[in-house]
């Protein structure tokens, strides 16, 4: 395992050492995990897709594991790169979207309602 440089990296070549080094000591993700995640994301993966994704995600996770090297104690996360106060909108109702337009792209509709197949499995809430 060749870790990325510690938090005070020296000058030359850092960016490109990162390119070449993959932290690949132990498996970070396995096919069962990929299937669980795919399920959460409502994606259906075939058996070879699962294998391929597992390998690709493994490589990517190995790469991003470099962040573990950084000491971030006490560092506030930046969720927004800008510092602005919350914009507020006056409570004034505007005319709603015409229902025909709201439904215009609907794959299936009945009157002005969207139609979806019935929930058959317990997994849909």
């Amino acid at each position, binding site marked *: 395992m060749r870790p990325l440089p510690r938090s005070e990296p020296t000058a030359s070549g850092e*960016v490109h050492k990162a*390119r070449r080094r993959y932290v690949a000591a132990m498996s970070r993700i396995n096919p069962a995990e990929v299937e669980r995640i795919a399920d959460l*994301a409502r*994606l259906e993966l075939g058996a070879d897709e699962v294998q391929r994704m597992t390998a690709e995600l493994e490589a990517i996770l190995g790469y991003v594991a*470099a962040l573990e090297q950084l000491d971030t104690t006490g560092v506030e996360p*930046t969720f927004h790169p800008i510092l602005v106060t919350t914009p507020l909108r006056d409570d004034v109702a505007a005319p709603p979207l015409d229902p025909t337009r709201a439904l215009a792209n609907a794959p299936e509709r009945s009157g002005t309602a969207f139609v979806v197949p019935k929930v058959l499995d317990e997994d849909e809430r």
Partner: protein
Amino acid sequence: MPRDRFETALAQRAALDAGRVSSAELVEQSLARAEAAAELGAFVHLQPERARAEARAADARRARGERLSPLDGIPVAIKDLMVQEGEPCTCASRILEGFVAPYQGTAVAKLQAAGAVIVGRTNMDEFAMGSSNEHSIYGVARNPWDPARTPGGSSGGSAAAVAAGIVPIAFGSDTGGSIRQPASHCGVVGMKPSYGRVSRYGLVAFASSLDQIGPFARTASDCALALAAIAGHDPADSTSLLEAVPDYAGALRGDVSGLVIGMPREYFAEGADPAVLARVREAVAELERAGAKTREVSLPHAPYAIAAYYLIATAEASSNLARYDGVRFGRRAQARSLGEMYRRTRSEGFGAEVKRRILLGTYVLSAGYYDAYYRKAMQVRTLLRRDFEQAFRGCDLIATPTAPEVAFRIGEKTADPLKMYLSDIYTVSANLAGIPGLSVPCGFVNGLPVGLQLLGRALDEATLLRVADAYQRCTSWHEQHPEPSWERGG
């Protein structure tokens, strides 16, 4: 008589004002060139009727002595993820096949208010996820300098449209470099404004805290016009900045004396194509001759930017793309139950790269991993932001290569996603920090364009445009153009 295809928008403006050409003619020529350049795959949808009608309206205004803006009557193109009312918006994805927008995006509304004539929608990587425009249901977009190579991505189509002389100005989006990197590969100017400078209302979201719409043009002065047309506060976007938009065109004084350009040592290290680094160093030297000063700076956390980026961007994307479920719009797969419908629709509708990023993003946010990955990446983001703040104490802008190499061959990197991700190595930091960046052509390596990237303080687009413009006044890279080998009949 056909105008020079590589004419700038400013020159077109002068010709229009002098009555030497009409908007109708300009638009007609754009449309014809777009058709003739089908092989480039730059456009996915042309809007001839609408464009002609808008051109006529622009000409009528001009006859009355009215002019909505410097862009009034000028043909432009927009990336197929900018929502335009009444037009299809597919984001180059199967899952949005057939979707026609019932509302207007703000940037498009501003362009229309400026009188710019949108001739069509350009090709892109699906949902803006890619660096080569190879992940599109419409097929690859090609680099006008060498159609066997990619134009870069994800805004490959817009970059190609400008580089090929189809339109003088096009718009794209930049989340990790998707404007700057294709600009570099196609030898044009491309700019990502500061986060919040341009409204995201109507920009189909990839990564909400990183996305920005920005312009492509062949010159910095055209870029200034384009940015002015779309920048500004939007009450419909809660992340939009309130600050007034300065006079970008007016800032192009051509003078860089006294400006200090920082060169981060981490960006000029081994690993990039040495010839690319050489072009960039030469460009900076040119600026020194013009009166700027340089100094070495350090962005010590640069090696971690890609890792942080791919955790944050994919996490946000996994959530942003949950709405594509076949219920209210877009493609819906055949299914007997709701669960089956969701899975089939999304599996059939999304390409492999999009799926990969959704999976990664879902993983990063999932229980047990949030702190180690997502939150950690957000902390690293703070460190990157501080790096820039520190660097900008000692310089006014930062110069780097835009990309580590010149345009690569189609198919060269598609087998290794991580390899593809590393194309963004110089560009992602700007998105993470929210600062503006642009790429300006600064030479060639083996006949392929190289881009100089300039990064600035938040809301200091004016300085970047000024420096790029000054550079273009003492160089002529931007006046070199590809041979239109893609055109049928020559």
